[in-house]
């Protein structure tokens, strides 16, 4: 009867954590739309949203309301079930990735109970993230195909081929990192990056894998369908992209999923390369404050790093023009994949003969 001995406390704890993470992701995604407009405005010497509430802070609420109350149109010749499935899948996969991210170090209560700020510590965390992110393309593909619109179809084909091309380089650049960490678990990867300085070198993976980071970052841009790789939704050539036939909240789901993806991808980037919740002098801080407060500080550090990363994504979006499709493919296949392979090779050589760590 071991299987039936369900730990109720654990389930409640995880449920609270899951709902908290959901709320935070949705909140950050909501305000990312506001932030995007504000960042764009500041870079173009404009003011940006400032009418709805102070600094236009109610703008996302107004946006959501607007999307809810719009007329819902399902095209006559569309494949109805798949048409509805598309945005749901996009949203689902966007939210699923957050399950394996460690948000703060473990917190041990006075009764000796360990609270992990991570929904699921699976030992193949990174593979899970990759799998779910790859599934995310289905949302775009199915939506574009089911719309029965040639522009949507073209755009979703672009999205799929772009995602597949850049996932290769992403995976290879990650292999170099995984060779150094020796673990696929995000929890362990973060724990290895403890503090900022240790054993005479930076602990954060960014300093150990700068080339890998640049490749990974570039591929993240492509995976997120954001400028300069926002080909799937280029307004000029394909009217609007894969969500052209969508209206009301189904369109909202697509747009929203994109911002949740932005948040989650930034978190994964931070977790893998910028030490996750670690920060300089964290041992001294841990010694001087209570464990709960320390966990909260770590969480806030992670969130602020993520916000910084999101701002960087926006910064790039409003700076660079869009790539042409052949340039995109050329960059992916002819530059990034060879570079990632070379990076992997050099990392392997260094590990094997120079550092002899394994």
């Amino acid at each position: 009867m071991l299987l039936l001995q369900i730990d109720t406390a654990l389930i409640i704890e995880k449920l609270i954590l899951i709902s908290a993470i959901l709320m935070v992701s949705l909140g950050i995604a909501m305000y990312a739309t506001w932030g995007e407009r504000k960042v764009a405005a500041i870079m173009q010497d404009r003011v940006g949203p400032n009418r709805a509430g102070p600094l236009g802070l109610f703008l996302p609420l107004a946006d959501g309301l607007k999307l809810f109350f719009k007329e819902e149109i399902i095209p006559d010749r569309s494949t109805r079930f798949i048409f509805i499935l598309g945005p749901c899948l996009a949203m689902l996969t966007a939210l699923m990735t957050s399950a394996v991210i460690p948000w703060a170090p473990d917190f041990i209560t006075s009764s000796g109970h360990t609270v992990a700020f991570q929904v699921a510590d699976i030992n193949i965390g990174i593979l899970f993230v990759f799998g779910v992110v790859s599934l995310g393309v289905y949302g775009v593909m199915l939506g574009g195909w089911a719309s029965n619109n040639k522009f949507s179809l073209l755009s979703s084909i672009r999205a799929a081929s772009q995602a597949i091309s850049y996932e290769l380089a992403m995976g290879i650049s990650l292999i170099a990192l995984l060779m150094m960490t020796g673990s696929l678990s995000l929890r362990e990867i973060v724990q290895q990056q403890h503090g900022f300085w240790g054993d005479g070198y930076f602990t954060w993976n960014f300093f150990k894998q700068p080339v890998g980071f640049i490749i990974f970052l570039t591929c993240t841009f492509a995976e997120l369908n954001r400028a300069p790789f926002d080909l799937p939704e280029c307004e000029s050539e394909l009217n609007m992209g894969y969500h052209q036939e969508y209206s009301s909240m189904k369109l909202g789901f697509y747009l929203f999923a994109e911002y949740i993806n932005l948040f989650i991808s930034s978190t994964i980037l931070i977790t893998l390369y910028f030490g996750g919740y670690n920060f300089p002098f964290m041992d001294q801080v841990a010694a001087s404050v209570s464990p709960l407060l320390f966990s909260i500080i770590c969480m806030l550090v992670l969130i602020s790093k993520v916000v910084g990363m999101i701002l960087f994504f926006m910064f790039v979006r409003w700076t660079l023009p869009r790539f042409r499709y052949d340039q995109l493919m050329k960059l992916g296949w002819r530059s990034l994949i060879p570079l990632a392979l070379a990076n992997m090779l050099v990392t392997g050589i260094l590990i094997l003969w120079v550092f002899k760590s394994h």
Partner: protein
Amino acid sequence: MQKLTNRAIQIDRSPMTFGERAYLPAIAKGLGTTLSHIFKKSATTSYPEEKRPFSPVFRGLHVLNRDETGAERCTACGLCALACPAEAITMEAAERKPGEEKLYREEKYAAKYEINMLRCIFCGYCEEACPKDAVYLSETVMPSNYNRASFIYKKEDLLIAHPQKHEGK
């Protein structure tokens, strides 16, 4: 072929060098450009709260002026209507009755004075034509409206309550 201007720029179509193909230096430069714009003042005027000042020669909505004592200056001579290239001004003259000296400056006045703002092209010829300094183009933008009839401005709409000094005009 003879050059039309000296502004033509020769475009370099040679293939990109390795540095250019790496994109990163150019991206860094571009990011620097946008970064510098963060510190620049925004060019926006938050319209209903703050308004851009008009130029002193701005030709806006018409007003009918009064003289120092508050009497109407217009004598319905019709010169403005004659000068108007868009034929937007209509007027009817009337004779001043005894006891109305406070109201109208001279023996004749405009009983009806209408400007069709949909016809008006805001050229300011009426202002130039007026021998009595009665009609002026103010620094106000014509408000929008829902029906055509409300764009025909009557004398009551045009006449201002207090005399206005227009220097240098």
